[in-house]
């Protein structure tokens, strides 16, 4: 039954229509050519890192699903004191490299100093909590491809030298591996900086993002501060020497029942090498403010849509699906359903996005060792009018079986200037 559903989905609409009305005299149109097979680049120099969807870092307790990890080498600037940090989450929905202090071993990094000399710290906010720690300078090495950024600003989370989380860094503290879910995050999204010009505004900078810390070990020893964009935690890719205009997340298709481990590639650059061309991919230019495209789903158009490897499920609102009793943040339809949305770039280019929605309690329960599960979806419960938060979020499940391109803002590629998504 499941296989039949997949066949029906992959059969083009024109063919289905022809089948339904085939009693007439006109012959059915010839089937279109099959889509090109997915090609996943081999890891190696100069631009491909291996990535893995698996059970996560050793220090993690509890189950993680649909997180792609990469290994990043962190070195004290201009030294050979380095630590390979495994299980850093690959996130095209954020920008900047963040590492849990506990994963740095004996490597000691110097904290970035703001003009005037005060050390810089950051509160990285998520929907479910926030992570705090100093901004430090490091030489960042992508160990397989050999890409390097020297003296890069990196967010070090949970550093014992900055033990006092500021009062306006809200929510559940995610300052250890268990609460964070990874040894770090490699933010390779469409923006260059994590915050951008808003945090550099000397008057209207937000409280709860960047800080300077006259006395980081005492309560209240850090105060919200404006930080210049050049000192903000930033997408490392744009600082690479070449292959620096975006990334491709390449993961193979995963069976509906899930997989214990999945290997793929994180490819740097778009159209810069023989292994990272757009080929048949369609570019969806995103808006420059929030890097959103549009998605139309079951007749409703969502203005704030994106493709995001850092989302462990596809998140979208559909009141016809119930949420699960065990995995309460996910949908539990009666059986697996095939869904489709039409994505649209700001230049009106359209692209169909097919995805499946499975009963999360059933599929996760039936395969307790699975860490890759393609049918996971869940609701976005709150959508305020005029708010800029995401409304239609194609997450990691959407990446299985597709090479998904993310182009960085202001960077030229053969498919246009970022920000954009393509597949």
């Amino acid at each position, binding site marked *: 039954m499941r296989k039949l559903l997949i066949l029906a989905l992959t059969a083009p609409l024109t063919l289905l229509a022809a089948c339904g009305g085939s009693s007439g005299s006109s012959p059915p149109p010839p089937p279109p050519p099959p889509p090109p097979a997915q090609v996943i680049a081999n890891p190696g120099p100069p631009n491909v890192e291996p990535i893995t969807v698996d059970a996560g870092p050793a220090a993690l307790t509890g189950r993680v699903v649909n997180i792609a990890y990469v290994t990043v080498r962190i070195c004290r600037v201009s030294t050979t004191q380095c630590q390979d940090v495994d299980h850093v989450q690959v996130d095209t929905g954020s920008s900047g490299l963040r590492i849990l202090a506990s994963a740095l071993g004996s490597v000691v990094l110097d904290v970035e100093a703001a003009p005037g000399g005060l050390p810089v710290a950051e509160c990285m906010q998520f929907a479910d909590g926030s992570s705090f720690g100093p901004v430090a300078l490091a030489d960042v090495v992508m160990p397989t491809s050999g890409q390097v950024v020297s003296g890069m600003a990196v967010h070090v989370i949970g550093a014992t030298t900055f033990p006092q989380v500021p009062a306006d860094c809200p929510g559940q503290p995610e300052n250890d591996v268990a609460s964070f879910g990874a040894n770090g995050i490699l933010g390779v999204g469409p923006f260059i900086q*994590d915050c951008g010009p*808003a945090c550099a505004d000397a008057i209207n900078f937000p409280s709860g993002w960047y800080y300077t810390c006259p006395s980081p070990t005492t309560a209240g020893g850090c105060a919200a501060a404006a930080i210049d964009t050049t000192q903000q935690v930033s997408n490392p890719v744009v600082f690479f020497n070449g292959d620096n205009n975006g990334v491709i997340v390449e993961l193979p298709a995963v069976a509906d029942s899930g997989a214990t481990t999945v290997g793929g590639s994180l490819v740097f650059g778009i159209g810069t090498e023989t292994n990272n061309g757009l080929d048949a991919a369609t570019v969806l230019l995103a808006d420059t403010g*929030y890097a959103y495209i549009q998605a139309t789903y079951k007749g409703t158009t969502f203005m704030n849509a994106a493709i995001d490897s850092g989302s462990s499920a596809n998140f979208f609102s559909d009141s016809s699906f119930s949420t699960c009793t065990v995995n309460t943040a996910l949908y539990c339809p009666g059986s697996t359903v095939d869904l489709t949305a039409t994505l649209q770039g700001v230049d009106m280019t359209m692209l169909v996005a097919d995805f499946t929605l499975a009963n999360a309690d059933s599929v996760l329960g039936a395969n307790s060792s699975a860490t890759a599960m393609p049918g996971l979806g869940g609701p976005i419960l709150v959508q*305020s009018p005029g708010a800029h938060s995401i409304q239609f979020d194609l997450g990691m499940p959407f990446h299985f079986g597709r090479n998904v391109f993310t182009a960085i803002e202001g960077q030229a590629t053969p498919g246009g200037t970022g920000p954009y998504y393509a597949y």
Partner: protein
Amino acid sequence: MKLTPSVVVAAVLSATLAAPALAALGGDAASVQADGVHMKAAVRVTPSSTFSVHQISSAAGIVVREFVGTDGKVFAVSWSGPLNPDLRQVLGGYYGQFLQAAAAAPRNHRQLAINQPELVVQNSGRMRAFTGRAWVPGMLPQNFSVADIK
């Protein structure tokens, strides 16, 4: 439109205080004031017959809306902006319960749903854009739809 007493009080407060008041969930809209200093905020009050909405907008683009019943108590809050607001301030006495529930929720950096008999919190978003809301089910006015908390 008939002004409820709480709206009048709040309007007077917002007119007289240099920094606007921000009441916490479950708190008294007329008596709680804090936080306005670093929110650098402007207040707008939208009354209705059964509740009023106090909207507080900070210069950094964070908007907090407080839903105040005829008893003057904040029964719901919503927020949106490039960051979450200071949730310790916004959730007030419910902040501890919120932290406990968030720690017990599955790891999910993009979506948070807390659904307890005394407290519902929903938060959504990623770097540069968040939206959330919270309410106390037992404090909702009669015939109030939570769909209006936005």
